[in-house]
């Protein structure tokens, strides 16, 4: 089992307020890793470190080490734009662009100057198939993305991220805005996607983490309390706080 990410002693500050404290863990390639914990404890903030989206927040300072495939991705010399083509992201609220379905998926490609219609067609089709959306939209690729339902829009966002052929897909509470049927569709999708991608998912629902992930990290107040295979963490947690959270005593 090789590691794709290695994080050592990561600290993150918003101004003087420390949001992440000494985070250390390894993310395994082609597995699903889940971050769980009560709200506001830094899960999403940590997730955003993987594709340097925290750069967009003013006053955000990060110390410590995070490497991807043995390259330091915290370095100021790193080409952040390139990193983001390898590490894709799906957001909590589906956010398709105000364009057609086709243009949404092709967006990232066009930004890389891929203009050949045949190439674009091929990648768009592939991505929509992998996101389990192809059958539902294949006849209306030119329709506005807003005509889709919430669940379909989220799968569209997944297709859009996949189109860049990333190594990693980050998912920030991807189903919290969706109904149970759409949620379960996406959970099934995640199981399929892990064959080709490494997935890191932040979720509010422990049950979801238990269902889809191979590894789970429990976050509390900016620290990783416990990190283990999902089976172990949920059945034999080693920390009392983890046990309290899983059994519903708080959070």
């Amino acid at each position, binding site marked *: 089992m090789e590691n794709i990410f290695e994080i050592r002693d990561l600290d993150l500050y918003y101004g003087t307020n420390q949001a992440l404290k000494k985070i250390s863990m390894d993310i395994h390639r082609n597995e699903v890793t889940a971050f769980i914990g009560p709200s506001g404890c830094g899960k999403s903030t940590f997730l955003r470190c993987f594709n340097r989206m925290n750069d967009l927040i003013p006053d955000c300072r990060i110390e410590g080490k995070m490497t991807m495939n043995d390259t330091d991705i915290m370095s100021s010399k790193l080409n952040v*734009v*390139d990193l983001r*083509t390898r590490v894709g992201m799906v957001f909590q609220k589906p956010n398709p662009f105000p364009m057609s379905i086709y243009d949404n998926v092709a967006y990232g490609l066009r930004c890389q*100057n891929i203009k050949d219609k045949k190439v674009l067609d091929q*990648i768009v089709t592939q991505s929509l198939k992998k996101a389990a959306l192809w059958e539902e939209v294949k006849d209306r690729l030119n329709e506005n993305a807003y005509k889709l339902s919430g669940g379909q829009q989220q799968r569209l966002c997944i297709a859009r991220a996949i189109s860049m*052929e990333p190594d990693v897909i980050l998912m920030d509470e991807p189903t919290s805005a969706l109904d149970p049927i759409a949620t379960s569709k996406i959970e099934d999708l995640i199981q399929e996607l892990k064959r080709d991608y490494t997935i890191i998912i932040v979720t509010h629902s422990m049950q979801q983490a238990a269902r889809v992930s191979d590894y789970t990290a429990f976050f509390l107040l900016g620290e990783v309390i416990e990190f283990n295979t999902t089976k172990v963490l949920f059945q034999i947690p080693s920390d009392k706080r983890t046990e309290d959270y899983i059994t519903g005593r708080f959070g």
Partner: protein
Amino acid sequence: MDKIVRNHISVKSMKRKHLQDVFVKNLFKLMALLSSSVIILIILFILMKGSAPFLPNYKYGTISLPNFLFGTVWRQDAGIYGVGFIVINTILSAFGALLLSFPISVLTALFIVKVAPRKVASVMRTIVELLASIPSVVYGVFAAGTIVAFVRIIGSALGIVTAGGNSMMAVIMLLAIMIFPTITSLSISAIEAVDPDLELASLALGATKTQTHFKVVLSSAKSGIFAGAILGLGRAFGEATAVSMVAGNKLFGPTFNLLDITRTLTSTMLAGLKETTGLDYDIRYSVGIVLMATILISNLLLNYIKNRIGNKV
């Protein structure tokens, strides 16, 4: 699966994208710097050109600064330029307009927001917007035809001779009309922003609607309304073309007679622009400096008063 996209991304293409980004960012930064330096350019150059007539070695003969600032005569033909009385006249007209327009604007704003039924209020709002978008020259034509005639009638009723109706009163009435939309719109926003709970509290204590409007709503909206008044006053100072059509351009002063012709800083800057050279042209820049100074000082003064009143609550 083919790695199509990966193959497409190369160090070179990444570099090109980065250069593009840097270029765009710097171009836009330049534009922003340009836009923000305009105010400095305005102040600098007008100060330079406007102070030139008072400095030694001025091309057309240096003129004395105190005579300019405190003078009571302005005669193009005789080369006498005293701006002192003009400042007084300008202040009189602008504050007169404010005095006239302020109560009407505030009451109209109150009417629109609180008293009028939906449809009437909506019509009134459109009327205010329309009045705001009418250009000054059109107001000038209207004033030169109607207001001036009105003043003429009043003059003859009182037995006073007027110069065809061009007078300070005409200027004040014209300016009052022109600053009305400004004060009204800001008052409308201020009144709309008053917490409805305050009104409810007043009504619950047994006050009538009207009492509530005047005692609670208007005083809560005080600072926004005052800001509107300050803005309106600034407009009254700066209005040029319309005023020059009804002022009359008196050669000396100051005038405290409402029915006498008058002269403002702006009408002075426009008067006789068609045939003017040399000192007569440059002196308008000096008048411009005086105009800006007047606006600045009155703004500071009024803001000071606004803060004092605000604290008294």
